[in-house]
């Protein structure tokens, strides 16, 4: 029930053999049919998308080339600023706020001919692994509505899986693109930190956040990443070098490539059906000529602990600005301080408050060295251990998520169990390195499983070559 690959849509629209309007209408028909069940979106921009599609078609009729995403419907995670359109982070505290500017990635997608079809649901401020922490209700997994889509970019993953959009953008702070991609059976990429501008991405943890694509296939993901990657002077942490060519290398194969399976992340705590698919993926790569061995990245086992100090610490500062003074919700109080307290008490959900408190504590005088300082040292160790591993390997392999999608409500009572979902994805954020999840087989419950490919800094090209081989070995394409 998908509308076809983004690559094909763009080619057809540019050639004038298919209208962007028809593509968008198909998309919106899918939304009409299933959005009530899935709840992928906080906002569907039906009229705007149709108008944008008509404009694309007019340009094609005029002999113009609208660009590499011509007529391709794209869904945006609702923590990406869209000029004049509500941008909520799925939080009550931002209800009603309309940013006066577009995020840099949004500008690039529109400039490439892409059509924004809606803003997708997320765990509030991207804090969560199931999209159940949304103030506007959970998103459901299109493969099984009783299951979560993963998170925090659950809405974007579900939108692509359900054919509501050919492409989507998410943000990944500790796995928020890759884990929902795995759970929804789509491709999800967390690029190298700095490859994609964060300008206009509402910050959760600034040193870890990175925007990346969701797509139904590897080539589409490469296409979207090529569009959004590249230096942006509005983001000081943006990489100045030219971004890599990805679509062109997809057929290069993996012959002679050295692939390491991270032993610390491929054993205890990982479900047997997930491990089985990981090893099947390794076998597929071997068959394609890769050399597969076990790799050790010892410090990754401390990743989760370090992450739950660093990310909340940065979040406690990033989320301070929601004080009711300038925008969003305000709950009045007798004094400015009381107003701020009342606003934040009413505006933030439980998980956000939990992390603000964790982070505030971790940065407090007398605790800084023991918590935040030590976590940063762990981060350095993880970077060191990855560097050692990459002396022997070109890419690393491990599961994306320890399990397939779990039932709604199954883990909401125990935050720690929920946090463990990200044990395999967090190390790449701490190291700033790229990683992506590629659908590979299904679990005992018939739900999708993702295999994660990790690469060193700016190693996206190699990473995508491996992903393409895994995909080819799978005949991915018929979701849901």
């Amino acid at each position: 029930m998908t509308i076809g690959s983004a690559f094909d849509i763009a080619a057809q629209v540019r050639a004038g053999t298919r209208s962007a309007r028809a593509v968008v209408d198909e998309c919106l028909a899918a939304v009409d049919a299933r959005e009530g069940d899935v709840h992928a979106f906080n906002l569907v921009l039906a009229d705007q998308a149709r108008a944008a599609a008509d404009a694309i078609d007019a340009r094609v009729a005029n002999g113009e080339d609208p660009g590499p995403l011509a007529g391709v419907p794209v869904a945006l995670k609702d923590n990406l600023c869209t000029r004049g359109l509500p941008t909520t982070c799925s939080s009550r505290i931002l209800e009603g706020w309309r940013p006066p500017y577009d995020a840099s990635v949004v500008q690039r997608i529109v400039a490439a001919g892409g059509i924004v079809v809606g803003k997708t649901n997320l765990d509030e401020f991207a804090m969560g692994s199931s999209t159940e922490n949304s103030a506007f209700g959970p998103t459901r997994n299109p493969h099984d509505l009783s299951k979560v889509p993963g998170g925090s970019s659950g809405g974007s993953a579900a939108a692509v899986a359900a054919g509501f959009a050919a492409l989507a953008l998410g943000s990944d702070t500790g796995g928020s693109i890759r884990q929902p991609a795995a759970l929804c059976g789509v491709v999800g990429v967390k690029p190298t930190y700095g490859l994609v501008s964060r300008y206009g991405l509402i910050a959760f943890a600034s040193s870890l956040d990175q925007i990346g694509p969701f797509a139904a296939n590897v080539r589409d993901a490469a296409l979207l990443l090529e569009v959004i990657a590249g230096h942006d002077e509005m983001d000081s942490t943006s990489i100045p070098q030219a971004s890599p060519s990805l679509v062109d290398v997809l057929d290069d194969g993996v012959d002679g490539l050295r692939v390491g399976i991270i032993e610390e992340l491929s054993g205890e705590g990982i479900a047997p059906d997930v491990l089985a698919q990981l090893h099947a993926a390794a076998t597929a790569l071997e068959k394609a000529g890769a050399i597969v061995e076990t790799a050790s990245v010892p410090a990754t086992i401390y990743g989760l602990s370090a992450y739950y100090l660093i990310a909340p610490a940065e979040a406690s500062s990033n989320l301070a600005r929601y004080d009711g003074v300038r925008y969003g919700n305000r709950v009045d109080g007798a004094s400015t301080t009381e107003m701020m307290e009342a606003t934040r008490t009413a505006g933030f959900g439980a998980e956000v408050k939990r992390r603000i408190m964790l982070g505030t504590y971790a940065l407090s005088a007398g605790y800084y060295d023991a918590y935040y300082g030590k976590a940063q040292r762990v981060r350095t160790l993880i970077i060191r251990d990855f560097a050692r591993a990459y002396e022997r390997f070109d890419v690393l392999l491990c599961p994306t998520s320890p399990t397939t999608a779990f039932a709604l409500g199954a883990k909401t009572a125990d935050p720690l169990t929920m946090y463990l979902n990200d044990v395999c994805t967090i190390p790449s954020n701490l190291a700033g390195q790229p990683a992506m999840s590629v659908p590979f087989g299904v679990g005992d419950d018939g739900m999708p499983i993702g295999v994660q490919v990790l690469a060193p800094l700016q190693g996206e090209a190699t990473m995508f070559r491996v992903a393409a081989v895994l995909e080819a070995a799978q005949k991915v394409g018929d979701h849901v």
Partner: protein
Amino acid sequence: MSDVPEGWELICGLEVHCELATTTKLFCGCRNRFGDDANTNVCPVCLGLPGSLPVLNGEAVEYAMKLGRALNCTVNASVFARKNYFYPDMPRDFQVTQFDRPTNTMGYLDLPAGKRIGVTRAHIEEDTGKTSHAGGDGRIHGAEYSLVDYNRAGVPLVEIVSEPDIRSADEAKAYVDELRKIVLAIGVSDAKMEEGSMRVDANVSVRPAGSTEFRTRCEIKNINSLSSIERAIRYEANRHIGLYDAGERPHQETRHWDEENQRTRAGRSKENSDDYRYFPEPDLLPLEPSAADIARIDASLPLLPAARRGRLADVATVSAERAGLIVDRGQDEFAFRAIGAGADPARVLVHIEQNLKDGFGAMGIDEFVRLVAMETENKLSATQTKQVLAELVAAGGSPEEVAKARGFEAMQSSDLAAIVDKIIAENPDDWQRFVAADDKDANKIYGFFAGLVMKATQGKADGKAVREIFMQRRA
């Protein structure tokens, strides 16, 4: 005047905030301009809107390093940090500043009187917006409502922190005064205390004279003029002494200078000490100036006020105060060059101090040098010189031609002596009284004779020469 009673010593360190006069703000392209309509120089970045990111202004860094070098600081690799606290005029509820790795450290400032005050650090940070509170006593507490102007939010600041080396209110004032002159000389700020582009906080404590301990200090804020610095520090030191004398002790706290009542007042007491939860700003890269950058900064620095005063003092016998006045007026370069070209230093300084207060106008240095030479060679009297000088300033031209056009011919001393003798002969009674008078009365009578000579010579006579002749005749 001593600030504190005998037996006590005043200890003071100053924190001076200087707004940098950059074209744009520290992290965005908004104009950095004082006095514009409220909230007109704002954008998503300086309003701290969700999703916005800071981009460092290279000009601000340049200015900050310049200031650091002018204060003899080491320029270090530095890291921006977030200082977290909630306040409505701070758009993100944290301030980007520098914490444990500031740009400038370990400098000093020499007061004109010679004492050296250590500069602990001079770091870069962003300014906050400006809140006005309506109702109540004008403070946030008890206000009916508050308005915030974010034009100032994100304006670049350098905070210059001194060592507690200051020992008197007078030294504190001299420190701020000298710092202001340095800032103005290198052109990094307009340093106007009344507009808030230079703000001074004073950390004050006292101790028994001879002791080396540091006692509890209080930080005095809201000092709005150079003259209130002295009064605020003096008041605070004596408040501490009063407490110690009464068997009490001051609490470490922030106090505000109350200009109207000439006293410091405690701020609203805080139950807990501030915990700003500093951590490195993840949205900005560390600053790593190269040796070449620092060398370039050094080369760009103009001669600083202290060096300019020293240079003037080297070529002319002049007190630090007089040299300072000329340097403050920016006329030292002119004076220095005139003296360098051979003009008499004493006459140069007298003219600049007394006759050139409003500037040099149309007069070139060379013309000034020639005029001074004409004066010192007695070709022109002091009075004539002054008249020629005024015309050169107003309309330019050569001193020789101006003097000639006015009929200012050199008075031969034999001619002058003849005139003097004639006047003596015409006023025998007065002459007798003059000869008989003691020195004090003689001076008064001399004024009468000098007047007659000037009248007879139409002001052409050199006063000094006239006096000499009269004194010779009298002896």
